[in-house]
């Protein structure tokens, strides 16, 4: 990546203080950057910290219970030190987010037009009439049929796929530089998922916005991402260009994930499984967090946390046994 990144996260740490005094290390030293126009896939299983990372970027974590340190540089700002007022100007404007649940992220008591127009008026001003025209244009861009009519409907009248389109239209209302999509197609059928992925690709090509796509579906990642970061127990364990991640992964966790998805081209009798459980993040282990579940574990793995090493240009792995191909040749 030659150009300077659009967003650069360095040493992001997020701890949650529970009511019972327990401290959960949800995110522990994450470094990430995304260039203009690139799509980064953030992959991991439930509880690995991928959604919390995205909420930190948006400044949406509760101030009382979340303790955040590190830096998130975006467009000349450090988002963690930006006053709330400025952050509100950025959100929905240059920074936008779409969520997994299109059913719950729209307000049921306002028409979809009201909700799209509100975003435009808040950030762009102008008359309500011109905002309405822009809203219709946006709905058309996300391929909602007869948008002039649909704009006055309430969310309950729309199907899941249509609601997700409205969410995308709202996110695009002010031409964001960065779009964070948190499991945007997980709740949708495979035919609708194909439509939404197609739409995201199309919009990215048209607007040049960068996208952070959060998902647990490696098929979706392979389809739309340029680069992938794999998270496990609050840390990034591998980062690679998409082709390399799928052909020569360098972290055992990634190997396990890739082995556990059923393939269309080969009928394996058995799928790979990752035995054991995710460590308790209230008391993270001293060494590598994956050590207890890793078949390639050495004594040294449990002693100290492994550093993120560059296995090949642009391909990073947090495993002291990388490059892994040496283990099988």
């Amino acid at each position: 990546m030659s150009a300077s990144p659009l967003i650069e996260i360095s040493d992001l740490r997020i701890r949650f203080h529970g009511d019972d005094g327990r401290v959960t290390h949800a995110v522990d030293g994450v470094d990430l950057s995304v260039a203009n126009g690139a799509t980064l896939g953030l992959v991991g299983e439930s509880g690995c910290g991928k959604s919390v990372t995205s909420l930190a970027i948006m400044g949406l974590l509760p101030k009382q219970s979340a303790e955040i340190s590190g830096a998130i540089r975006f467009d000349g700002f450090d988002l963690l030190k930006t006053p709330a007022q400025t952050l509100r100007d950025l959100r929905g404007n240059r920074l936008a987010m779409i969520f997994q649940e299109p059913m719950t992220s729209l307000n049921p008591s306002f028409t979809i037009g009201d909700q799209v127009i509100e975003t435009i008026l808040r950030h762009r001003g102008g008359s309500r009439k011109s905002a309405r025209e822009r809203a219709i244009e946006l709905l058309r861009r996300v391929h909602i049929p007869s948008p002039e009519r649909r704009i006055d409907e309430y969310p309950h009248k729309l199907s899941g796929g249509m609601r997700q389109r409205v969410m995308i239209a709202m996110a695009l209302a002010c031409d964001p530089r960065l779009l964070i999509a948190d499991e945007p197609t997980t709740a949708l059928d495979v035919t609708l998922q194909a439509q939404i992925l197609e739409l995201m690709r199309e919009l990215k090509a048209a607007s040049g916005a960068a996208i952070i796509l959060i998902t647990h579906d490696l098929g979706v990642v392979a389809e739309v991402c340029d680069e992938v970061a794999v998270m496990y127990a609050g840390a990034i364990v591998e980062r690679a260009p998409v082709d390399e991640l799928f052909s020569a992964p360098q972290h055992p966790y990634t190997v396990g994930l890739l082995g556990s998805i059923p393939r269309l081209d080969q009928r394996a009798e058995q799928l790979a499984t990752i035995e054991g459980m995710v460590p308790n993040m209230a008391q993270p282990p001293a060494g590598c967090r994956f050590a207890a579940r890793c078949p390639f574990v050495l004594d040294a793995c449990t002693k100290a946390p492994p550093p993120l090493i560059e296995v090949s240009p642009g391909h990073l792995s947090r495993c002291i046994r990388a490059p892994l191909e040496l283990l099988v040749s």
Partner: protein
Amino acid sequence: MTALLEVEGLVKHFVAERSLFGRALAHVKAVDGVSFSLEAGKTLALVGESGCGKSTVSRLVLRLIEPDAGTVRFDGRDLLSLDAGGLRAFRREAQIIFQDPYASLNPRMTVGQILTEPLALHELVPATRRAERVAELLRLVGLEPRLARRYPHEFSGGQRQRIAIARALAVEPKLIICDEPVSALDVSIRSQILNLLRALQDRLGLAYIFVSHDLAVVKHIADHVAVMNLGQIVETAEADALFAAPRHPYSRALLSAIPVPKPRAKSSRIVLQGEIPSALNPPRGCRFHTRCPYVIERCRTEMPQLVPDGTGHATACHRTSELPSSAAIVPMDGGFSPVLEKLVAAFSGGPEAARGGGVSSVGEPPAQG
């Protein structure tokens, strides 16, 4: 060969709206003339989009809801004519596991109580031997017997799904209906449950009806697949034949849309335009015609019948013989790269691979973990 389950012309219309005097004004045609059969020890997958009626079919087969028309024969018996006693006996032979392992276990009962209940209810095992049987069931699904004293909230999603499977197995059924059994689970846990289901089938000769919207999972687990659209089966075939060359335009679109874990995979994806029509008011003629890229005039007026081709592959489309070849429609993921193949083999065969969990532990007491 006689089938374990034979379903013929199953119909279920739900009343969506009533008049002031209780007269039905509108019906949702959830299931509209569905027929299929399933042999013992085999897996039939029902696939289709949300609202296509696949879950309703699975509940009709168990008579959890009563059909409006049609017959269901299980092991030669007509299920719809069974009285309460006969139905209860039938429930010993067919069980169901659900998508949400958090909602399907009673939070106030221990795992031991949950598993003892069916044993007591059907008077399968004398009271003195029940604890022993519970331990056996837990071992069968790869859990330690000492966990019987715990409550559901102490388990992860994957472990709860194992408990739900153990409960279904308690009555030694011949058929288990799996309604989206892995959809709520993480990728690595999903593979454990799929391996377990398959190992149990081999060991106990179970038949499965597997309801899922995840087509890669279906390809992995099913022998036979029925594709449903708006309450009707539009295509049914051996899984391998269907995935090699789907015939119905809807199956083509569905299978071509599978995202595969291979960057820059060659794809001839058919992205369907338009909305799924409402089951409240399904289109006349072929129910897929509003979204079909191959639609002709006949499709708008005449409903196509499911026509078998003699090799066990049946399609409900007027234009089956005229459509272009579909050989390259299902995206190819090319399998693993040579390096990844070795890595996955090493990952699965590593020193800890023999430890509890997947298939390897079925039937053997898992080690303390």
